[in-house]
């Protein structure tokens, strides 16, 4: 028992020393900390289940305060070869679309459980991400991951989220919507990864059918590389999808910079998509600023711009978001925010306003 307490205290101290400030499961926190995604997540490309470090971090650094005994530190490991995790988001939403009655509703945005079977510790894992709400149980990720050479390289095969740009929590961000790569659209394939020094890089081959049934013999290739330093990071993504409908190619640049309590993120993506109409060239951008007001308190501002068809003038769209995120205790987050869309005046949906309050529980 004594040795376990020592281990827990050592772990907490290590996290505090490494962190200095706070962290969560979003890219801005990785940028704020100078971390790679793999620092806190089982998945080297981020999102989903947190590893031992990520769980410890959430308790000892992220929250405004930790309640409970110091030695009761949740690591996610429920037995030697099995780790579990989860996310649940319950919302109250308000929507205002011009020329329509405003609406509001309570919504379970998502409830997910993660399982990671580390059948050969630090080598071979079987990972499952199962969504239980909304709707019935649905598998979102199911893959096998094998690490080579002391964790420098890995290969992952199965159903997975593909690597492209920042893995944002907000699936409706223009950059995630335009890429078609987000937390709602897993694909099936194989991914090779590198985690070495300041570099994190991935190369994935997948069906490229948006999670639907594969309808042709063409495949999608996606690659992402990021150079991570303590105060800044920069990366690039490339995508090519060969289908019977035509080819879809894309490229993106992204970066982040930590300026004291403020963290800046940016991403610019460009797609040339022959599978839409007679061919469409699309540009989407994200600029995000996160201000850590105090431990456990974050104010997020995002500014997004979308040109859905470069050949058509005056069709661009904007999206602004202002969110407050409060983590009063470990594994609990209260989020409230507004999102304002600004598009062409003749499309009501492109000029809607949204507000939400969210209770986010995770472990």
């Amino acid at each position, binding site marked *: 028992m004594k040795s376990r307490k020592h281990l827990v205290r050592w772990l907490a101290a290590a996290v505090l020393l490494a962190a200095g400030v706070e962290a969560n499961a979003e890219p801005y926190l990785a940028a704020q900390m100078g971390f790679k995604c793999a620092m806190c997540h089982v998945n080297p490309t981020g999102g989903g289940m947190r590893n031992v470090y990520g769980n410890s971090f959430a308790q000892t650094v992220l929250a405004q305060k930790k309640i409970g005994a110091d030695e009761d530190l949740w690591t996610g490991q429920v037995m030697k070869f099995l780790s579990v995790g989860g996310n649940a988001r319950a919302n109250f939403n308000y929507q205002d*679309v011009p020329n329509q009655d405003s609406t509001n509703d309570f919504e379970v945005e998502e409830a997910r459980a993660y399982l990671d079977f580390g059948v050969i510790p630090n080598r071979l894992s079987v990972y499952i991400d199962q969504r239980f709400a*909304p709707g019935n149980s649905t598998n979102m990720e199911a893959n096998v991951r094998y690490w080579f050479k002391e964790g420098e390289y890995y290969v992952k095969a199965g159903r997975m989220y593909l690597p492209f740009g920042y893995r944002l929590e907000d699936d409706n961000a223009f950059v995630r919507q335009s890429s078609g790569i987000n937390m709602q659209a897993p694909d099936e394939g194989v991914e090779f990864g590198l985690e070495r020094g300041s570099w994190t890089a991935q190369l994935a081959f997948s069906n490229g059918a948006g*999670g*639907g*049934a594969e309808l042709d*013999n063409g495949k999608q290739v996606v690659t992402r590389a990021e150079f991570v330093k303590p105060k800044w990071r920069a990366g690039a993504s490339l995508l090519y999808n060969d289908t019977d*409908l035509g080819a879809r190619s894309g490229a993106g640049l992204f970066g982040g910079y930590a300026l004291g309590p403020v963290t800046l993120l940016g991403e610019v993506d460009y797609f040339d998509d022959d599978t839409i109409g007679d061919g469409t060239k699309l540009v989407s951008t994200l600029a995000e600023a996160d201000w850590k007001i105090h431990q456990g308190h974050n104010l997020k501002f995002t500014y997004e711009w979308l040109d859905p068809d470069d050949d058509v003038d005056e069709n661009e769209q904007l999206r602004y978001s202002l969110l407050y995120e409060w983590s009063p205790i470990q594994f609990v987050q209260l989020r409230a925010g507004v999102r304002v869309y600004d598009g062409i005046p003749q499309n009501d949906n492109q000029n809607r306003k949204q507000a939400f309050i969210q209770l986010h529980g995770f472990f």
Partner: protein
Amino acid sequence: MPSSRTNFLAVKGIFLAPAFVLLAACTAGNGEGLDANGQPIPITPPANSDFQEIQDTVFTPICTQCHIGANAPQGLRLDAANSYAMLVNVASNEVGSLLRVNPGNPDQSYIVQKIQGSAAVGGRMPLGQAQLPQDRIDLIRSWIAAGAPAPTAAASSNKLTVTSSIPAAGEIAAPGLVKLTVIFAGNVDAALVGNTFELRDGFDQPVALARVQVPSGRPNVVEITAAQALPAGSYQLVVRGQGPVALADEAGHVLDGDADGTAGGDFLMSFDVSAGASR
């Protein structure tokens, strides 16, 4: 004397500040000369039908923010060129026992369940947006209840053309495929369909057909039903636009099967049936 760290931050700031200013300088379009879907206003007005209205007010302005192109979620493309063929009588990818649109039966149509928020899988559509106004949901329900008739093309053309097919050209269809569907940009002369459709296997041998018909209430659609489930292999559907009997629309305009802009020419559509397990 500034430190090297200060210099480093200053250099970063020089690069970052203009980047954010550039981003902030981007503005929304004023929509001048565009329709509600952000496309140039068409010279001729679109055909007037329930489906066209659904396309113009729901699918194109809202759903195609995601459901478009090769990476459309669940492979469901809802742009004007593909929506009808990918919805009507097509099995849902998430709940394979339900059709996305089950003509005549809105409650058993997966699209209705998705927009009403009662689907067995996933969130209500449109995801992360305001729910569709009730009058739009009612319009979709009534269109399905009426048999999900296809949009009809403006009658200005002097030829009949193919809009889309199920399976699509080049598609690898799941095992068990029995029925093929071809959608035309005009109402087909039902008296001609029995002699103008032919299905051939990979050895160029004719495949026995149980029936070829224009379904009730969908005059621009032809359904081709094989005598039995198609075995794994390659196939080619032939629709005659030339020869002794050529397919034509109700006004007698002959099929432009080879898509050369003039009436005449056979329509050829190749596809495969996979041997793997159905998904």
